[in-house]
């Protein structure tokens, strides 16, 4: 039943390539609504990351949350991580990144997010899809069995956001929606005092 409905909904999702041409001039108010929507997806991601990293989260719950988090991303998205004291970037597929996070060998993990969120302009790429970058900052602390802090870092996360206007038919009504998908994430360790 579920699969059937899913197929029907998928079939109904008709994206009009040319339709996006009509979206050249988006008023500031609409732009702000799209920005907020993109920002909300990033906030959702940060909540999922906190849940996945939390040692209190049961394995099955964490798996489900990983699935939901992966759904936020465009297929093939990667996380590129660099640290201050090592050259180069390590690349992970998003699912791999979340699974590594879930399996981190600490007794307790604290993931906190700074309030600051920086949203770039949305620029159009050749196919008409809008692309932007949202920057957030995360503080990670890992503790051992005795509750001692063994690792801590503050990372800057630059998250790609793809926004595309699509249309679909639901219950006989044509719905114009903004499909917001997250893309590659650049994780950079920030310099300490």
């Amino acid at each position, binding site marked *: 039943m*579920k699969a059937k409905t899913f197929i029907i909904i998928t079939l109904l999702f008709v994206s009009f390539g040319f339709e996006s041409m009509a979206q050249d001039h988006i008023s500031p108010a609409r732009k702000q609504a799209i920005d907020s929507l993109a920002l909300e997806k990033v906030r959702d991601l940060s909540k999922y990351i906190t849940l996945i990293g939390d040692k209190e989260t049961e394995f099955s719950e964490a798996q489900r949350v990983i699935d939901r988090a992966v759904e936020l991303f465009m297929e093939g998205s990667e996380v590129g991580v660099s640290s201050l004291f090592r050259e180069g970037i390590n690349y992970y597929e998003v699912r791999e990144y979340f699974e590594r996070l879930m399996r981190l060998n600490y007794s307790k993990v604290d993931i906190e997010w700074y309030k600051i969120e920086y949203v770039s302009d949305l620029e159009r790429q050749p196919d008409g899809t809008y692309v932007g970058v949202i920057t957030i900052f995360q503080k990670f602390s890992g503790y051992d069995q005795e509750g001692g802090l063994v690792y801590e870092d503050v990372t800057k996360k630059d998250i790609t956001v793809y926004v595309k206007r*699509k249309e679909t038919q*639901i219950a006989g009504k044509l719905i114009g929606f903004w499909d917001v998908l997250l893309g590659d994430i650049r994780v950079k360790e920030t310099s300490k005092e």
Partner: protein
Amino acid sequence: MQAVNNRIAISLLLLTEIYSVNQLVKHTIMKRNHYVSKLIPRLFILLLIGSVAFGTGGCKSKKKLAQEQAAKEYQEKVDKAIAELKAILNDDGTMPLSEKERRLADIKSQNLNDPTVNDLIRQVEDKIAAEKEALRLKEEEEARKKKEAEEEDSYQYIDEYFNAIATANSVSEANAKIGQALKLFASPDVPVLVIISQEGETVDYDEPTTIDKYLNYLKDTKNYNNRIQNIKFDDYGQITVLELIKK
């Protein structure tokens, strides 16, 4: 003889006019009333003498007088109509719409046929039409808001479920609430639409999701910042489409 009769008639007419003026004044200033009533017989005599003495004026001047009088009256009516129409045009909303319509009808019924008046009538008609349209829209908007408020009240029980899931203290508590909430829906795959912005005819939605996913989303992110905009039910009273709007 005819001329004399006419003259007397005009004099009497004038007299009655004076008398009617007197009647009018009587209501307001009693003292004056007394004075005027004393004056009437004298005036009557004076007029009678006058009409005999200058009676040789003939029919022509009488007609002219009547014409002048009529023209004067007409002009007064036109001036009055213009003033009233202008007042309606300049009205900032103090005068009720029904009053504007009544005054316009009065002026129109006089069939003054003066170009300025006709032009103003058209302007006033346009103004009244515009005001009527604005009023209709306002009433419609109010009715819509009222309906929305009523619906919101009637959908409050659904909102409460969403809030309870978003604020649940534990995963198991949230899961129990999700189980209960799902019973309100025809299936876990019922579409959930979220309006992110509305600008005239253009409505922007978030990507459509299903109620099952949406309820779990509330559990995971603890983020319920929408309100219910519209609900469709099936014959069994179960929800088949849920439309939300960003607060």
